């Protein structure tokens, strides 16, 4: 049958009949957003939190990581699906469905979460460069200026690729885990037996663990990338695979970080107070060079996230409220966009420079806890929107997906509520 004999058929339908061999090419075509988002999840906050949790609690919180990763898979898939079906970003959907008031709530949550994240990235930059003796009063302003210049004058793709190479230093964790040969039986037990001490520090650690694995930021980012890539419902199958792989890889990477820290630092009673402490986790692999390996990875991850995060936040907010946005515009054309972008970049840097050097790691952990606290708000919007048939049509959440999604939201919220209660009761 030729196409000419049924002219009303769209090309998309024609393409669906393409032979198998084209399937892999189609996958490569839409691949990327999920993996990139997954990698972006392992930023300064991620590395520090995972290492610190492993050092302090050994394998005891691995079960929580398993749940969070499962949650991440489900939530990321929802956002990617929303992007493919509606062709709109998460903040656009929130605005169109829930109006200005709720948009303000959601955008405030995003702004605060990402504001603290930017500060955490600067803290990561300062901590990693402190390993080679650069004080934060020099490293932070320099990084801020470098990011500004990169964003305004260079193609982002080039920057991204360069920094990814540096992040690859984190591949060192799986290798270290194999060399150090931890007690894999204990790791397995940690993964399946839920334990959580009822004390403020443990709850903060748990909240930070969930908050850094499922960041509000990642959800906005994945949906925007899917929309920008023009993935449509027909190609969505491949995009879904990409998102799945990205989320699972993030989780596996995090697992190795906790295991390595739990094996090397936990028995030695080293609590992570500085980047140098965290670097010791890599000593079975890199010995004396562990600091350099760790520092390079942390610097790359922090720089990349510090570049993307202020931009992504400004875009999400400006598009939700209909303000002019775009990096090629100047302050007069896009005052809010440029203002927000600059504010995030400058405020984050100022906080870190003023912060006591020896508490930088604490600052990063606190920022991830803030993300965890704000996560339930963002999750509620995602779950409501992705289940809404008037928006998603036949691609709305099924019962199982919904149940898992709400399960994750409940877990995140109960940790948040638990943390607030414990703090109020002063059970430090």
């Amino acid at each position, binding site marked *: 049958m030729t196409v000419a004999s049924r002219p009303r058929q769209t090309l998309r339908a024609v393409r669906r009949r393409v032979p198998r061999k084209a399937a892999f090419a189609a996958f490569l075509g839409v691949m990327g957003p999920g993996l990139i988002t997954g990698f972006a999840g392992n930023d300064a906050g991620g590395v520090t939190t995972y290492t610190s949790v492993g050092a302090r609690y050994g394998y005891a919180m691995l079960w929580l990581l398993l749940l969070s990763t499962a949650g991440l898979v489900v939530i990321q898939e929802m956002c990617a699906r929303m992007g493919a079906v509606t062709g709109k970003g998460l903040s656009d959907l929130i605005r169109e469905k829930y109006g200005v008031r709720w948009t303000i709530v959601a955008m405030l949550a995003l702004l605060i979460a990402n504001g603290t994240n930017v500060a955490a990235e600067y803290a990561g930059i300062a901590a990693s460069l402190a390993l080679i003796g650069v004080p934060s009063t020099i490293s932070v302003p320099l990084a801020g200026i470098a990011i500004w210049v990169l964003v305004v004058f260079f193609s982002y793709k080039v920057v991204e690729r360069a920094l990814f190479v540096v992040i690859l230093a984190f591949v060192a964790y799986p290798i270290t885990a194999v060399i150090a040969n931890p007690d894999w039986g204990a790791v397995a037990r940690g993964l399946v037996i839920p334990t959580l001490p009822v004390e403020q520090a443990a709850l903060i650690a748990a909240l930070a663990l969930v908050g850094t694995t499922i960041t509000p930021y990642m959800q906005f980012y994945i949906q925007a990338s899917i929309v920008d890539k023009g993935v449509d419902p027909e190609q969505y199958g491949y995009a879904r695979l990409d998102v799945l792989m990205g989320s699972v890889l993030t989780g596996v990477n995090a697992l190795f970080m906790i295991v390595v820290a739990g094996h090397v630092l936990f028995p030695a009673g080293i609590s992570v107070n500085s980047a140098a402490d965290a670097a010791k986790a890599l000593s079975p692999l890199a010995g004396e060079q562990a600091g350099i390996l760790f520092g390079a990875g942390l610097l790359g991850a922090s720089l990349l996230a510090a570049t993307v995060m202020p931009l992504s936040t400004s875009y999400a907010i400006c598009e939700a409220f209909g303000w002019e946005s775009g990096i*090629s515009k100047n302050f007069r054309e896009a005052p809010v966009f440029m203002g927000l972008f600059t504010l995030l970049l400058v405020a984050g840097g100022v906080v870190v420079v003023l912060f006591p050097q020896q508490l930088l790691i604490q600052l990063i952990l606190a920022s991830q806890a803030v993300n965890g606290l704000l996560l339930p708000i963002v999750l509620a919007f995602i779950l409501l929107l992705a289940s809404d048939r008037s928006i998603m049509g036949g691609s709305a959440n099924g019962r199982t997906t919904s149940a898992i999604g709400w399960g994750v939201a409940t877990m995140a919220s109960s940790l948040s509520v638990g943390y607030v209660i414990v703090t109020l009761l002063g059970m430090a």
Partner: protein
Amino acid sequence: MLYLSEIKRAKVVDPAGIEIGRLLDVAVVPKEQFPAVQWAILRTPGGERIVRWSDLERVSRGYRLKDSAVPPAAGELPPEALRLGRDLVDKQIVDTHGAKVVRVNDLQLDDKQGQLRLVGADVGLRGILRQVGGERAAERVAGLLGRKLPRGIIPWHLVEPLESRQQNVRLTLPHAKLALLHPADIADIVEEMTADERLAVFDQLDVETAAETLGEVEPEMQAAIMGDLDGERAADILEEMDPDEAADLLQDLPEETREELIDLMDEEEGADVEELLAYPEDSAGGIMTTDFLALPRDLTTGQAIERLRELQPDPALVYYLYVVDGEGRLDGNVSLRDLVVAQPDTPLTTVMNPNVLRVEADTPKEEVAALIAKYDLLALPVVDARRKLLGTVTVDDVVELMMPRGWKKRSLRSIAR
């Protein structure tokens, strides 16, 4: 002036003054320049109730039903009716004056003798503030700073609503205002739309405008649009485009799709495009167009002008007229001016410039751009090894190569948000 946010949730009473519900929304049929509000949607304890706007009258604090026995008007609401609050507020619209997509924060209404009309879309900060009840406070703060809050109202006759999806029924709106804009402006606008909205626009534009618009859209998006369009329609648009632009576009499509489309095109245009596709993308052959005017060398200037009159060529083609021999080999070029000022019986060969600058099809495109820039040309002929004229590269095909690097900042936005 009245705003939708101010009458939303207003109390509605029956003739006896007893509250029956609240105003939830109002509906218009967007046909006139400033459409009249024809229906009111009320939220009552018994559910949604739709009444005619003319059955309501304004009272001190809200609206009163003129007659308690007014028939329900739910059945009257045509499918093309727009509910202002549901379908327009918080949604995106096209500002055809500024040629961009903007978000509606509130709607401006005008009440004249009980006839309420939609007159403008508030896309400014005031609209947002009004929705959250902070306009007054913000005005006062601005006043203290000695400034005025700017108004951001777009008159409704300059607004084009976009498709909205309600309960999976896609509302197809006429895009008459959009179609009147310059194709480059339409391209800017569709780039900001979702795939569904874009498709609706391209389905409605006439083939010529659609082709010109498509030529102005970013390359990656061109391919996506082509893929979504109906096959026949896509082929029609391709035929209308310059062959080199059509070839560039097809280059980005998967092979199967490309072949299907070329099959659907007219034989002649399809063959032109196929020929262009054979050249590497970054060579003179890859960027040239096969549209050009070649005059046989044995004509006189008078006959040449006669020939032009018959052909009525595109304005872009008459800057350079090429003179070819019986085998199609390039012998020279001649300007329109030279043709016109010469005596009609002068042979073409005496007025033509025989030393015409030309490139071969495999010349790198950067080199072509450099030549065009250096000699201030509007077009450069492309020949094969035997000097046979294949096509021309016009200045608009290489203008992007001459721009300073980084002028297209858009790519950044696509990843970094």
